[in-house]
């Protein structure tokens, strides 16, 4: 203690203020702990509620809702926008309890067949039949297959994607490399290692845990290496040589020529790295190309998803609009779905917000609009061809009892995929070996497989 002045008598009052302070802190903490989220609702003529994921295409839809409302005066549209994992939880709880809070919601190709099977979704075929202009035959084949359950459409696509390889032509050319349109993973790995330098890494691949993040590209690698999650009798196959080869390849490529901190790099991080010229190649969703700026926009080349054994290894994902079977405003809800996924909607987005903003991957006719073709010159054809060839029912070399390319279309996969990808993230971080991770993953998958064996 240094020398200090004697305090004046009024400091005697301090103890009480100390207690007040602590009591106040406790109250604040109790208040924070008890406060929760509240819900809201609205009344009116016919208000339909859409639970929506917060991707750019849906943000654009929100902007164009006034156009819809002025054309259909009896219908008001209330859009609840949330990030992907949260909207998934909210909508799942809503439909599972059949409470009918959402008339419409955005769900992915993963949910559509599962939820149709549980009768949580309204069959859309009778509604589509009523509108002669809708033309369901115009929907891109790969997407349409993924949204069909027992011959009927249960959701309509709003946005679709496959995966492709994006690369900086200038950086590869500097090393004398030209990328073929249909590269193999060995070619890609060789190119990545050749261009890798302290300032520019060879390739960006997702390592962020999550079945929709890291597992999406990794699963397509496993598929083309000949691996599968389950055999026809639901025996887990993660301890197979194919899985081991694929995971070893993925992890080693990341270690040798991947982005730093791969374990926490997802779509956003890779986009950032590619746009800033920190990586020369990137294997990810076809939509990524529409977010490129600067050098990335000028000098990028696009190739189909790299392969090993199986050709056409690109994934398939679509955000779709689906109607809850518990909705009480089905006709109004369909009117909105019809409008938002019609041929004319693409033109509306193009003229009002710009042609680069048109949601890709839903309708073949979109790809014949000259303005859209001009705005997406480099990647439109790769996107369309990849989606058309992506087949959720035949994604693996050996036959499997499930559908899905970069996921297994069963209820348990969300949790299984998340847990397994966490183990793989630990391998990427260097905290365990490929064998250890696959052994744990095999045990997790075996537990899930057992549920389907009788």
């Amino acid at each position, binding site marked *: *203690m*240094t020398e*200090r*002045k*004697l*305090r004046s008598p009024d*400091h005697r009052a*301090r*103890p*009480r*203020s*100390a*207690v007040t*302070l*602590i009591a106040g*802190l*406790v109250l604040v*903490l*109790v208040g924070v*702990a*008890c406060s929760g989220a509240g819900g809201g609702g609205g009344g009116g003529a016919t208000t339909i509620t859409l639970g929506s994921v917060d991707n750019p295409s849906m943000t654009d839809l929100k902007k164009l809702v006034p156009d819809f409302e002025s054309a259909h005066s009896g219908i008001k549209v209330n859009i609840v926008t949330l990030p992907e*994992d949260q909207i998934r*939880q909210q909508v*799942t*709880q809503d439909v*599972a*309890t059949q409470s009918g809070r959402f008339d419409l919601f955005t769900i992915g190709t993963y949910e559509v067949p*599962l939820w149709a099977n*549980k*009768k949580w979704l309204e069959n859309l075929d009778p509604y589509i039949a009523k509108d002669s202009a809708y033309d369901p035959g115009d929907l891109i084949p790969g997407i349409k297959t993924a949204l069909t359950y027992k011959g009927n459409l249960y959701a309509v696509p709003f946005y679709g994607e496959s995966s492709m390889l994006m690369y900086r032509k200038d950086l590869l050319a500097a090393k004398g490399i030209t990328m073929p349109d249909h590269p193999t993973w060995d070619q890609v790995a060789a190119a990545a290692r050749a261009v890798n330098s302290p300032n520019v890494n060879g390739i960006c691949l997702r*390592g962020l*845990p*999550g079945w929709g993040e890291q597992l999406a590209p990794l699963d397509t690698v496993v598929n083309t290496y000949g691996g599968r999650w389950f055999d026809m009798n639901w025996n887990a196959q993660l301890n197979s040589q194919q899985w081991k080869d694929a995971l070893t390849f993925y992890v080693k490529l990341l270690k040798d020529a991947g*982005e*730093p*901190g*791969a*374990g*926490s790099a997802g779509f956003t*991080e890779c986009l*950032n*790295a590619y746009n800033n010229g*920190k990586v020369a190649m990137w294997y990810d969703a076809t939509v990524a190309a529409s977010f490129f700026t600067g050098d990335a926009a000028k000098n990028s080349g696009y190739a189909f998803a790299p392969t090993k054994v199986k050709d056409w290894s690109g994934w398939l994902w679509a955000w779709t609009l689906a109607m809850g079977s518990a909705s009480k405003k089905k006709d109004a809800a369909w009117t909105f779905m019809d409008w938002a996924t019609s041929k004319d909607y693409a033109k509306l987005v193009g003229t009002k917000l710009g042609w680069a903003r048109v949601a890709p991957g839903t309708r073949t006719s979109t790809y014949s609009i000259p303005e859209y073709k001009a705005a997406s010159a480099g990647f439109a054809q790769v996107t369309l061809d990849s989606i058309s060839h992506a087949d959720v029912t035949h994604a693996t070399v050996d036959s499997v009892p499930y559908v899905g390319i970069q996921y297994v279309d069963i*209820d*348990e996969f*969300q*949790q299984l995929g*998340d847990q397994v990808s*966490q*183990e793989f*993230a*630990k391998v*990427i*971080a*260097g*905290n*365990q070996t490929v064998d250890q991770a696959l052994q744990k993953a095999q045990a997790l998958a075996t537990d899930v497989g057992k549920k389907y064996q009788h």
Partner: protein
Amino acid sequence: MAILRSVVGSGGARGSAASVSRRESWARRLPLLPAFIYAFVLTQIPFALTVYYSFFSWNLLKPGSFRFAGLENYAGLVTDEHVRTAVWNTVLLTVSVITISVVLGMAVAMLLNSEVFGKGIMRTLMIAPFLIMPTAGALIWKHTLLNPLYGLLPYLLKPFGLGRVDWVGQFPMVTVVTVEVWRWTPFMMLIILAGLQSQNPEVLEAARVDGANALQSFRRITLPLVRPFIELGALLGSLFVVQTYDSIYMLTYGGPGEDTTNVPFLLYLVAFQGYSIGQASAIGVVAVIITIIVATFALRTLFTIFQVEARR
């Protein structure tokens, strides 16, 4: 939390309750009743429902799976490897965060209690981490400070060859503990500072005259005086650190592997990735019981301080 409130309420009234008549005591309680009912409805009914669901096997994704399961869910907790990992992680996280933040909080409080230049500004700055939203704080740590591509720390450490270290991925628990310590040190500092300021400087002065050095007077005089404050800070802190969720969700999502999955985060995963309502409820009930035990100790310490203050 309602338990906390009701204990505080009854504790204060106990002394005089015996001497007033029944009618009078009801007349006193009546205005409090709406608040009590409000708190009861909002906190105890969901809790009762959680207890109820914990005896059922119910997966939201499986229509028709709702069936009575007895103690199956609780039995599952004892044997489940994931639960054991989560409990261990919770203990590790809580103990290290509380220990480190008490030590740091004590040091900063001592500093702020002495006559240093710019004390007011320093105190305000020190409290800041506690006032920043946990989610925002965790995001700043993850992206602005620790991101290996564009983060500040890897940039500063580049000359030392540590520019490509993925802190969140390679040292997940260290990262979470660091962020939580950053958040809880101000809390400990405030409480300990309150204790230090109630110290009578004349006693220290006397000790100095008697020839005690700084270390001796700290150990023999200051430390015993602020001990109840440290205990209170540690217990209140553990109550909230046990429930850490925001920063784990934002920083590591419980990973890699299960390296940072604590009990609240496991509950989240079981409830919202697995949609197993019954199992998640059982975890919730056990977590509440553990928290109540810690809270009881915290409240007892709090009352000890109040009683000591009242006697003065």
